[in-house]
């Protein structure tokens, strides 16, 4: 299953890259004297966001919290390219909380690798986009009374945001992402995903 998802991500990234290369193959029509813009853009972004869990129990025990992530986007040049951008992201989420009755300390971490395809909905400095994809979510929870519970499972995610490129290299990304994955690492079936709103900053190459 894990392999299937990885392959799927690679296929989506390849498709994104291919779509970006197609217009780049056309020769410049009017200004041959200028160098052609790069046929592809590669962006690396760092993200920080606020996580709003889907499962109310998570909120009760750990509350909301921040999520850090690193994202790689590969697509056609914003000026020339098509609408598709491949996207691969690793995110890290860790929270401390307390048990529901005894209030003993507990700690949770959800690390995910997510990927998919973004569709640019326009051109210009600020380009809105939507995207969808899948992810692999590693859950671990540790506390003294129970010990450690952990499980890893695939899930799905969707994203909506605006990618702002004020210069040639700087990229600012504002987005909302929703992830959905259920698992049962111990006694209870839990929803690990939720809504993440955040901002990312990166560079385009």
């Amino acid at each position: 299953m894990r392999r299937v998802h990885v392959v799927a991500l690679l296929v989506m990234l390849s498709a994104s890259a291919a779509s970006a290369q197609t217009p780049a193959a056309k020769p410049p029509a009017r200004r041959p004297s200028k160098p052609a813009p790069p046929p592809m853009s590669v962006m690396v972004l760092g993200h920080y966001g606020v996580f709003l869990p889907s499962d109310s129990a998570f909120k009760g025990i750990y509350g909301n919290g921040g999520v850090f992530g690193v994202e790689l986007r590969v697509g056609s040049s914003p000026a020339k390219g098509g609408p598709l951008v491949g996207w691969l992201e690793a995110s890290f989420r860790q929270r401390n909380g307390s048990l529901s009755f005894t209030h003993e300390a507990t700690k949770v971490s959800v690390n995910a690798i997510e990927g998919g395809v973004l569709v640019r909905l326009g051109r210009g400095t600020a380009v809105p986009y939507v995207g969808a994809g899948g992810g692999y979510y590693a859950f671990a929870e540790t506390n003294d009374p129970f010990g450690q519970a952990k499980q890893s499972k695939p899930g799905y995610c969707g994203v909506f945001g605006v990618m702002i490129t004020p210069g040639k290299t700087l990229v600012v990304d504002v987005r909302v992402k929703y992830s959905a994955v259920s698992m049962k690492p111990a006694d209870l079936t839990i929803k690990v995903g939720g809504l993440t709103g955040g901002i990312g900053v990166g560079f385009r190459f």
Partner: protein
Amino acid sequence: MNKNFRAAAAALILALAFAPAAIVNGQDRFLGPSTGGPPTGTVKGNTLTYNGTAYKRVDGKVTFPDCTVFVAADSGELTPVGTAPDCVPAGSKAAGGVPAGGAVEEIAATSQPASPAAAPLRLSGLMPEPGLLLIAPIFPVTPVAVQASTPARVAVQAARELPQRAQAEFQRLIAKAAVDGAVRVIVKLDVPDVSNLMAASAAAGAEAQSGAAQVSRLAADGQLRDAIGAVAQGLRAELAGTGFAVNRQYDFIPFIALRASPASMATLLGSPRVIGIEEDVLTTLDPVEPAGDGAAASGESPMYNAALTVIGAPTAWGWGYTGQGWYVGILDTGIRKTHQMFAGKTILEACFASGSAGPGDCPNGTATMTGPGAAAHYPSSYTSFDHGTHVSGIAAGNDGSSFGVAKSADIIAIQVFSKSGSSVVSWSSDSLAGLNYLYSLRGTYRIASANMSLGGSTLYNASPCDSDSRKAAIDALRAAGIATAIATGNDGSCGGISAPACISSAISVGSTTVADVESSFSNSSGNLQKLFAPGSAIYSSTGASDSSFGTWNGTSMATPHVAGAWALMKQAMPGGSVTDFLNALRNTGAGTTGGCSSGRVPIPRINVANAIASMGAYTLTIQASEFGTTDPVPGPTRWVPGAEATITAYPAAYSDFVGWSGAATGKTNPVKIIVNANATLTANFQYIYAPPSSGRRVTNRSFSQLEYIDILTWTPNGANQGLDVNRYRVYVVTNGTPTLLGEVAASAPLEYWHRKAPGASTQYLIAAVTANDREGAAFTITVQ
């Protein structure tokens, strides 16, 4: 003879068995192995075992006590390599001369002279005569010479200095074994420090105890048992391959009962572990006769043992001394425990019956059995099958209208008789086992006395038969405060009493009529007999049915009067020794007439009431409130002026001792009181009530994990005021079995959280516990 006997006898036996010649010269301590083929031992690790003795092997070499050095191959083969340079031969003058003790020698003899080269052994002192080779491991030997006619490798036990009597017994038994092929013997073991170990064992547990005293007793018993067991084990190893069988091994007396072949006898003779031997002989019951020699006292009911009145038992009962709380051990033909005379009594049972043939005659088909049914008597087709039932009834029976002497005492019935034709007989080794077993119970049950209404046909008069192995057991019991009453026998002899009554530490008992005329059948000895008791026309339970009775004659019937009287005296004066009670009985008994009385030193007929009265000037009446008892049991106890009485309070279940009142105050337990006046002492007890409790279940979760917590709370029970409740115990009940979860101090919040409680409804018990570690009744709650 004294010095040469052991080697000579053993050599003779083995020469008969192995034929070749054997010549021994024991003039000096030659202690290395000899040849006649390569000497071979057994090697295990760095230990060489040669001729039954273990030697340390260093760098593959063994130095024997004579300083000869041999290479000891792993195969066990020994090759001489010289003499240890700085070695001093064992037993040499340089090493302190010739100590007393024994030697084990092995002789390899041939019909041809053995040259020194062929036998590379160093003899300090005399060299062997031609044809002589001599080996002995550790003991110095006395000069011994045994000549045999044909070549042989013969084991010979060199002469240790055994007592003349033991040597004579060895000689007799060796001859018997040679004729019969085997002989049953009881061997006395040389157990290091056995006297002190036995004394410590006896001192550590004279009667029922608890707590630390029990631990101390078990430790002392364990040391004694281990010491005896180690020697017995060593002897068994020595005897391996000689065709022996162990009939009995004893935990608390240094003996072992064997069936010994001639080769076994040779090994026993020379074993350093053996210091005495006797034949395991058969003992019969003292024959009992129908009533006739004496009659019931005038005016007594025929359904009543008139002798009880004669010995003052009803008077003692009137003082509260009925034997309550004490056991009488009856070594006899078992018991019909369903007889109405034993209704309501605790009867412990055991059987030690080797049988005349086969594996044994105990109800389980073996020679040993303990527990319910073990002392069931044999079928009525066996003569005197119900002898033990009659004896037990005299000692401790009680059906409400017929009584034994200690009418409230309990019984330890021990079957020591085996079937023999249509009769019953008892091996000495079995009665010894019975005494050993009784001793083993002394720390668990309060045993007043042992009764042995049995005896052999040989009569003793001039001197006691103290070589009898049973003396050791009787001594051990006596040291533990337990008397052994034994019948003098029914041969009508004025010239001696039978064995084992003739043992000096036994309480030998002859028979009188209720008119204090010595019974015509009663054996008597002015030197050895201690007491008389009524044994003519004694009415007691028989084995025909649960309600059958019979009137019998015999010293067998006199003896349990003494054994029962001992229980009354023990109840009256728990701390009294056997000697104290014997002196009291002898000093307060009645004179006798007739029989053997003329010209013989007077021997008193017992009066237990007089004896009790003579022992104590003051009465300490012990009382116990509800929910507990005491040791001594509640009732009047007699004490000599100034005696220190020790009284222990024992709370019942779910109760605690809360203090003394009367002659003592406070909570010290046990309490010691100097008795200088009549007094009353009350032990006060209080029930420990359960704390009212409740419980609820809550859920405790992380994001992915969950547990149920049962929260139990309770409050102190107001009825427990006066008790020092210092904590509470919480149990969870699983499949009906409570398991302790934990304790909560009474000073802490009275709440207990049971984490990870089972999902289903769960039952809990909560009980208060006092500072005396007494746990009260539990409150039961179910949480779901």
